[in-house]
């Protein structure tokens, strides 16, 4: 019973992950993350490809956060090729990003996390007790999709966002339609946020940790930047990402893990909201202040409510963003050089995502991607171990769900998978 942990560096892992908790003599002996996702070798697939092809290929890394991957790749390659996109392009990218945040967070909060807290196998079963909330969640998810469809061309793997510009600009009518819908949905997410009050957040795993996120230079709350912020107060330029992530190969596992200064850290909605709390405004700030307490810094479950607040944030920002898009000037921009390297930093819904690319003679020569889940794994293990120790006395079958919920709180791409945690008592 000595298995090794297997995580592909850029793997998307939904449905293919598992965590094994081994208990021996009433002590937690081992917590193991197994990820069965087959290797797809993306970093190798793009070598020799043109930058455009790289962008198309890397958005296939993940369906739920294809836009983040695509944007991270575009940023990395634009930096490498000396492209400074026009204002409209930049703003449309932000809109796409908001769409993805809303879609992904709504999917996770309403369809995957809430059923756990309320004791249902899925959202469909939850519908009888919370019809408005569940339908509202679907409504939000649908809106997120609509935003992505409008801006990127389709809900998943939309090809419209290109290096230096777009294939086709969305029409003003379409944008106005999005704006109107965003305003309509604000009360929906408010109701969703209020559900949190009914939840008794488990406390058995609590422990302090570090939070890492982007740090937009203009002082706003946001999802893209050239700077990384660590909750210790330090900042790093994008190209120095390795100083933070410190990807290393652990002895017992083939997977790379990340630690900052030897300590595990957390990325994601919770990290963003704690790091950039001062930068929130509007209703999002109000709800955050109302719901915040010191436990947020010790308990990963609060990632879920952070997601809900971020949905609200995106909806609130959307109208002014859309106005700005309509005003802004558009111009497609061509690469100014054929060689270079660059790092793209974005916040995927589940946390900091880094694409680093090097281009030689117009073709990608090297690529390195650091995905949020890799960064969270050590913290996930830590919290699961804490919880397992606290719940030791319980029956195995009763332990599994609480442990699974911790993993799921991270929305770690494997969140959709069930029976993730296997407790083995020896």
């Amino acid at each position, binding site marked *: 019973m000595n298995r090794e942990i297997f995580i*592909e560096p850029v793997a998307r892992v939904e449905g293919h992950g598992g965590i094994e908790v081994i208990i021996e003599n009433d002590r937690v002996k081992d917590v193991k993350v197994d990820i069965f996702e*087959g290797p*797809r070798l993306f970093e190798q697939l793009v070598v020799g490809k043109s930058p455009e*092809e790289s962008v198309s290929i890397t958005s296939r890394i993940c369906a739920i956060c294809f836009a983040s991957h695509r944007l991270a790749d575009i940023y990395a390659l634009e930096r490498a090729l000396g492209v400074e996109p026009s204002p409209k392009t930049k703003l449309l990218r932000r809109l796409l990003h908001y769409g993805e945040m809303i879609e992904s967070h709504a999917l996770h909060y309403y369809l995957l996390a809430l059923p756990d807290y309320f004791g249902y196998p899925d959202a469909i079963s939850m519908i009888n007790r919370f019809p408005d909330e569940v339908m509202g969640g679907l409504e939000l998810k649908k809106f997120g999709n609509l935003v992505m469809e409008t801006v990127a061309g389709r809900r998943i793997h939309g090809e419209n966002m290109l290096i230096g510009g777009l294939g086709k600009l969305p029409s003003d009518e379409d944008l106005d339609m999005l704006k109107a819908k965003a305003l309509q949905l604000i009360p929906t997410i408010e109701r969703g946020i209020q559900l949190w009050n009914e939840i008794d957040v488990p406390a058995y795993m609590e422990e302090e940790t570090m939070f890492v996120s982007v740090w937009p230079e203009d002082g706003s709350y946001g999802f893209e930047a050239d700077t990384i912020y660590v909750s210790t107060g330090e900042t790093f330029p994008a190209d120095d990402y390795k100083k933070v992530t410190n990807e290393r190969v652990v002895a017992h596992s083939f997977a790379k893990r990340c630690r900052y200064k030897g300590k595990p850290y957390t990325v994601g909605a919770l990290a963003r909201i704690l790091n950039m709390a001062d930068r929130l405004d509007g209703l999002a700030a109000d709800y955050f202040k109302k719901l915040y307490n010191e436990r947020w810094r010790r308990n990963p479950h609060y990632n879920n409510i952070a997601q809900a607040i971020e949905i609200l944030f995106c909806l609130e920002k959307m109208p002014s963003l859309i106005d700005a898009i309509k005003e802004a000037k558009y111009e497609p921009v061509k690469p100014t050089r054929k060689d270079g390297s660059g790092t793209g930093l974005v916040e995927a819904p589940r946390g900091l995502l880094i694409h680093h690319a090097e281009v030689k003679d117009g073709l990608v020569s090297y690529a390195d991607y650091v995905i949020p889940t890799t960064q969270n794994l050590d913290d996930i293990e830590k919290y699961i171990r804490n919880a397992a120790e606290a719940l030791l006395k319980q029956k195995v079958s009763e332990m599994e769900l609480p442990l699974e919920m911790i993993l799921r709180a991270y929305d770690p791409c494997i969140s959709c998978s*069930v029976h993730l945690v296997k407790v083995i008592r020896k």
Partner: protein
Amino acid sequence: MGKPKIGIYGLTGCAGDQLNIINCEDELLKLFDIFEIKSFVMASSAKDEEIELDVAFVEGSVSTEKDLEHLQEIRKKSKILVAIGHCAVYGGVQSMFMGNEEWMERYKRVYGKESAVTLTPPLEPKPLAAYVKVDAVLPGCPIEKEPFLKLAGKLAHGVVPRVPDYPVCAECKWKENECLLLKGEICLGPLTNSGCGAICPSMNIGCIGCWGPIAKENMKSEAMLLMEKGFDMDEVAKRFAIFGGVERAEALKSLVSSSTKESGK
């Protein structure tokens, strides 16, 4: 006939096809109503793996021994097995270098030693049909909602659907687009299965072929046409390969080798 019992499964891929099923927001309840969903791990933790299935939808490529075992189990218990998405139907982008015998090399470049993995042995990614009988396919990276609902509508009555015999260009013309090939851009529409509704050409972006190669494609003609438009053969061959799947990878070998001969002259 009672409600057909179905299962939705994922092997190695980006889960986009399953996600797009979940993305059928307005129709999801209806789908749960028409079918008895026995397993859909991505959407529900209620599952029943023992039962015989009328239809199994499988996404993803076979990329590990574990994938293969899982697939064989699913095949055994299902009457109709439907491959959904490019990975399941053609192998996915991860199979673009299929057959060039360097897979282990690339693998080691990412993972270091080949022996370091003991969890489940990795396999070179392949489509489902490389291992089991597949009764119907819905290509696409990812699948689209409308074709999926149409497929589901057919399967709801036990009718096994077929992919259309016409390429993206047909849908592109239905949408009244100008042809990008004529404008000198690289568009894989003529070689690609229809179904997406010609999304990309409608946005002035050449089709990259994500619905996979259409049966009996005329790759030679398109390749030569693009060469006349000023692309070089390697560039064209590379583009063809990205979503070309396993079969085209084979065909491309001769395409590339003959072009090197040509340019050697």
